[in-house]
């Protein structure tokens, strides 16, 4: 994903390009799954009084997606600033945050 500030390096091989496309697809899928999870929890009450999305739920989902992207961009910017001011890779040997 370009907003993460990756990419660069010259003339990749076919295998590298395909692997990169695959990794990008995986990351987008993962991002969508996380967004789905979060926005469903925030917008859809788990009592299911009806099978349709009502107006309030629909609008909430739309705004939730927009906000998720905005947070994504902000976090990305903040990490790039930190990396720039540190002049190197952030994080250490262990990088997981758990969920």
């Amino acid at each position, binding site marked *: 994903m*370009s*907003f993460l500030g990756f990419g660069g390096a010259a003339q990749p091989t*076919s295998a590298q*390009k*395909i692997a*990169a*496309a*695959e990794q*990008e*697809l995986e990351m*987008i*899928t993962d991002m*969508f799954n996380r*967004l*789905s999870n979060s*926005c*469903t929890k925030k*917008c*859809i009450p*788990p*009592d*299911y*009084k*009806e*099978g*349709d*999305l009502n107006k309030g*739920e*629909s*609008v909430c*989902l*739309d*705004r939730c*997606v*927009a906000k998720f*992207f905005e947070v994504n*961009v902000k976090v990305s910017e903040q990490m790039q600033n930190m990396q720039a001011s540190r002049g190197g890779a952030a994080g250490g040997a262990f990088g997981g945050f758990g969920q």
Partner: protein
Amino acid sequence: MEALNANEQREFAAIMERRQMKDFMTMYSNLVQRCFDDCINDFTSKAVSSKEETCVSRCVDKSLKTSERLGQRFAEQNQAMMQGTGQMGGI
């Protein structure tokens, strides 16, 4: 990804196809788990009650509609971000 040539695109499409069944399975399993967790809370009987059954049916219905709507918005936002505008119009 824009730089893939015809051969590479064909190979990538094959990889995506192999992933599709797996993704569908995960989607299905998540759906079952969510609707089970949200709708089944009475263990005084081993049979699903009609009330629970209604709940599961609506849960499936609503979850699929939720996923469809989220997918549309996600695709729009992703598109917008790729084009570097970072902004979508007016909700």
